[in-house]
């Protein structure tokens, strides 16, 4: 019990590490800032493991968890903000993910960032970022959550804009911060609405009130929509996703940590933590389409299509992240809490692995563009094999972690009546396999197209890769469907279980033949994607004569021939959809959504200039005008003082006469 109570140490230790690194980085540790931050993150990692052990041991702890809060500050008659931690299985799992990935990234960065400018500041900000994420994950109320949320926003701005000498890097950083900040507007409004509707920010209390129906209906919907806008901003969902690919301007370890495993997942965490509120608000259990599922599905499909046409390795992974985030969001949207969170858990590992792998490739090839890579299989074996493990996991091929989590989501989608989501999920699975293996072939197979001579990265870089490859491979089994699903047993908070119990539709579906059939279909699609990618990129065959000449394709073709649907799929869709739709989608994304964002930015700038002109000329003009006016009136009256005594006398007598006149005749 007592281990969990010390969890408030996690963020605090990291913040202290950041301050030490910042102030003593250059002087005491002679530029090696990781001397300060690594022990802190290691300590947090060990604490998370101990916490996990404690949670596995005691199921009450896993579900109820412990809460320690104390009054932060009072802002009205007996209204006050609280600062506290609420640690349950779910929180421990999240801490585990965050600390592991963060530690791996910090070790990886020692090699990757050696010699880079502002090395010390990089580590300091990295530590603050981890602290921010841990605050959000361990917080027991929404207000403290917003604290962690915005600290991560700041650090992502600083890290993306790490190489701020070049103007487009700082532009990308600003774009990221502003887009997430626009989302945060929703978050803040949602928090305010939640507070006034339930008189508290505490997650548990809000969820309980939502379940019992005390949460005033229209306010509940408004609050959830507002909060979801915040999630869209932070987790780069459909309308506000354009900042994530641009955020690749930051150093690769940053992309791995922030834009794969932790920060972008914050939105998913928030939805998961307040899942009962969202379920009741969006009545996930009744309708078969709701905002969350819709946005998630759209994001998944669009991002997957966009990833097809990228030539920048990191951009491919970025769009892949957006797509997988879409997966998690619509998993929560269709009521599969366990599956969604498990996917989050597994995705963190293998996506971080892929990003760090990409980083190692970029580090040795000194360029992001896949066109001047290739043939690195023999030159960088360790990176290659860990990359393959990560790719297979991402595509959801059987033994790997990705299979279990993604398959669970698809099964739940099918089972909970969200058939269209299931279909989109399958399509995305296919596309994921396709673009991942496209990237793999372009970077690792065939012959080296670049100039320069790449070499395998040093131990400090490949070590974390291998370390991450292990969970990407085996972690899937703890979340296997059916009775022995350990993950859901530990990680589901009590409130979530209550919701599932309350709404029959969300009951966990029995493990039977349909699950295996569904699993089979999704794996088949994944393999198909791999096959198609290999055909197009590895054997570079033109579509025309592909069927006859190559033996395996011929057998496969004959095998597939009897399923007309598949043949149509093979012939038409592969080429039908690949080039035009993807390009159209990319064009749409760049020219419409991104443009809309840039245009709004430019528009506000122009609006700013317009208001300023209005302010200077109209408003200020009015005041200056009144000053000039008084001056002119003064000038007019000045003429009367002619200096000629007789004129004064004349006026004097005339006035006197009139006065006398009035006096004599008027006064009766």
């Amino acid at each position, binding site marked *: 019990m007592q281990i969990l109570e010390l969890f408030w140490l996690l963020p605090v230790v990291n913040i202290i590490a950041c301050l030490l690194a910042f102030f003593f980085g250059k002087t005491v540790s002679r530029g090696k800032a990781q001397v300060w931050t690594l022990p802190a993150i290691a300590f947090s990692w060990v604490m998370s493991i101990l916490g996990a052990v404690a949670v596995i041991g005691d199921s009450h702890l896993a579900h109820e968890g412990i809460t320690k809060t104390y009054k932060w500050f009072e802002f009205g008659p007996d209204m006050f903000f609280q600062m506290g931690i609420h640690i349950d299985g779910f929180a421990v799992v999240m801490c585990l993910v965050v600390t592991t990935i963060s530690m791996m990234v910090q070790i990886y960065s020692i090699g990757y960032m050696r010699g880079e400018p502002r090395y010390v500041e990089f580590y300091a900000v990295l530590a603050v970022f981890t602290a921010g994420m841990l605050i959000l994950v361990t917080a027991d109320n929404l207000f403290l959550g917003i604290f962690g949320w915005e600290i991560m926003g700041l650090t992502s701005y600083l890290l993306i804009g790490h190489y*701020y000498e070049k103007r487009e890097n700082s532009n990308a950083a600003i774009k990221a911060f502003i887009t997430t900040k626009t989302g945060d507007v929703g978050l803040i409004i949602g928090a305010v609405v939640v507070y006034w509707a339930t008189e508290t920010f505490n997650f548990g209390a809000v969820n309980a009130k939502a379940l019992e129906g005390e949460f005033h209906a229209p306010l509940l919907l408004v609050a959830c929509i507002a909060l979801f806008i915040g999630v869209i901003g932070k987790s780069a969902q459909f309308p506000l996703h354009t900042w994530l690919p641009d955020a690749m301007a930051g150093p690769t370890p940053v992309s791995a940590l922030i834009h794969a495993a932790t920060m972008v997942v914050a939105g998913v965490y928030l939805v998961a933590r307040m899942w009962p509120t969202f379920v009741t608000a969006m009545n996930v259990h009744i309708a078969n389409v709701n905002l969350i599922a819709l946005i998630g599905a759209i994001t998944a499909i669009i991002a997957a299509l966009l990833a097809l046409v990228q030539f920048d390795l990191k951009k491919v992974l970025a769009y892949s992240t957006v797509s997988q985030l879409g997966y998690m969001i619509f998993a929560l949207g269709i009521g599969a809490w366990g599956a969604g969170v498990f996917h989050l858990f597994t995705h963190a590992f293998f996506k971080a692995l892929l990003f760090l792998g990409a980083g190692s490739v970029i580090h040795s090839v000194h360029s992001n563009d896949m066109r001047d890579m290739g043939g690195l299989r023999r030159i960088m074996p360790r990176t290659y094999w860990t990359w393959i493990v990560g790719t297979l996991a991402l595509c959801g091929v059987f033994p790997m972690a990705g299979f279990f989590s993604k398959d669970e989501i698809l099964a739940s989608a099918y089972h909970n009546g969200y058939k269209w989501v299931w279909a989109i999920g399958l399509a995305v699975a296919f596309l994921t396999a396709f673009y991942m293996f496209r990237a793999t072939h372009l970077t690792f197979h065939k012959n080296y197209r670049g100039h320069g001579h790449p070499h395998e990265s040093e131990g400090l870089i490949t070590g974390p890769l291998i370390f991450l490859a292990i969970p990407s491979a085996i972690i899937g089994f703890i979340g296997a469907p059916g009775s022995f699903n350990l993950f859901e047993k530990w990680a589901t908070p009590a409130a979530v279980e209550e919701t599932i119990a309350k709404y029959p539709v969300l009951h966990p579906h029995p493990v039977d033949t349909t699950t295996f059939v569904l699993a089979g279909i999704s794996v088949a699609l994944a393999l198909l994607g791999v096959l198609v990618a290999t055909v197009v990129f590895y054997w570079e065959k033109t579509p025309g004569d592909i069927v006859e000449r190559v033996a395996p394709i011929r057998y496969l073709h004959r095998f597939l021939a009897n399923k007309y649907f598949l043949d149509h799929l093979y012939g038409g869709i592969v080429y039908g959809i690949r080039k035009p739709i993807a390009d159209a989608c990319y064009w749409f994304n760049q020219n419409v959504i991104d443009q809309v964002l840039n245009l709004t930015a430019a528009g506000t700038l122009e609006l700013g200039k317009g208001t300023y002109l209005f302010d200077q000329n109209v408003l200020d003009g009015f005041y200056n005008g009144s000053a000039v006016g008084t001056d002119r009136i003064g000038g007019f009256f000045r003429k009367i003082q002619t200096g000629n005594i007789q004129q004064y006398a004349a006026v004097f007598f005339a006035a006197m006469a009139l006065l006398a006149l009035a006096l004599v005749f008027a006064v009766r």
Partner: protein
Amino acid sequence: MDWFDSWALSLAVFIPVVGALVILAIPKAREYQIKVVGLVASIAALIVGIGILSRWNWDDGGYQFEVNKGWLSAIRSNYHIALDGISLPLFILTLVIVVLCIIYSWNHWPEPRSPKMLLFLILLLETGMLGTFVSLDLILFFVFFEVTLLPMYFIIGIWGGEQRIYASIKFFLFTLFGSAFMLVGFLALFFLSEPHTFDIVELSANGGAAAAVISSTAGLWIFAGLFLGFAIKVPMFPLHTWLPDAHTQAPTVGSVILAAILLKLGTYGFVRIALPILPQAAHSWAPWIGLLAVIGIIYGSLCCLAQTDLKRLIAFSSVGHMGFVMLGIATLTPVGINAAIFGMIAHGVVTGMLFFVAGSIHERYHTRDMSRLGGMLSSIPRMGGVFVLVAFASLGLPALAGFPGEFTSMLASFEPAGGLSQSLFRGFMIAAAVGTVLTAGYMLYMLQRVAQGEVPGEYAGHHLHDIEAPEYVSWTPLIVLTVALGIFPSLVFNVTNSSVVPMFEQIFHHAIGG
């Protein structure tokens, strides 16, 4: 030590003036003595302030250190001064800021170098400000309110930038115009209120009963007069055009004091005088104040986007931030007023720091034009770091001073006082939330221009010295305060809450009625 209780406030208020007079006596040549006397005077006032803090009874919301002597008995206005939860934070902030200003300008005084004159004016200004925050009598308040005007006029007029004359006259006329109407309001209050009195405590007792006698239309007009006087000082939307000019032309020290404290006289006036004495009028004015506040937020941020001059941008950002404070006040709820007072303190600390850094940048780069500045983080990293920290605090980032004030005022705006239209104020809240994005927009735009990027060609060769000793000494307390206010907002909230809640209980029971 009870003599201290009665004398403390008067001591704190008038030590600076005594210091100023002593400075007058020292011949102009002996600058060192002048500087020492100036510093000693301001520190002495600060020590008295700390003494007050130490003897402060934290959970009593009422007036403490109260002194009520006869002054101008002819017009029944007496020397009634006291401190309570609302004015204590501002009082201490003034003492701190002035000491820091004097330390900051220890060895580099603005052009036409004359430490004697500048210190004299600053100390006179300090007395004016301190007096305004402690006075509980309308005439005394007005006198101190005007006393602050003159030194500021000379500070901008003598040590300002190119069009300093235009700026100082504009500042002076604007504020004078406002305070003329304010005085009319005070007099109207005196004559129309039941027991003819200038005493704020009597007037605002049990929900402004004394002034409740006034007919509602007259009440509205009196409130209009007070509103004009305070709104110009805040500054609120249509009456704000003096602020950017005053700030762009004012010397660094002038800008800091103007931004950190003088702007708070207006909002403090609302909370201390306008709201408690005329709650009915305030209630019918509230939607308009809210509307102007929100326009101010959006308008200020938009204007910032169009700026090229660094100090002018920070000045417009003040218009935006004070918009949040006024939104808090417009809700007429204890939550709103708490948010407003915290907003005042946070804005004072943060914008004060921003102007200090802007002044140092101007002193090193000799220009305020952002297009010529740049690459501060690489050329003078420590200064750049401080600038980034303060910019993010002003942006309203949690864990830094800006956030609690803004968040609570948005929170308050969701549930305004009874009778005020909720949908209107919720609309204000959403507009204010959008305002935070715009604030983020122009702050980052500024950071990109000034802190990040390459060191521009013309400064490549120069050796730009990083933060020096006086700057260190004067900035550290502010930086510590910025972070402390962000992490422990209870520093201010506990103090203000204990006196805002009873004040509004009165108003609710008697005037607006729940």
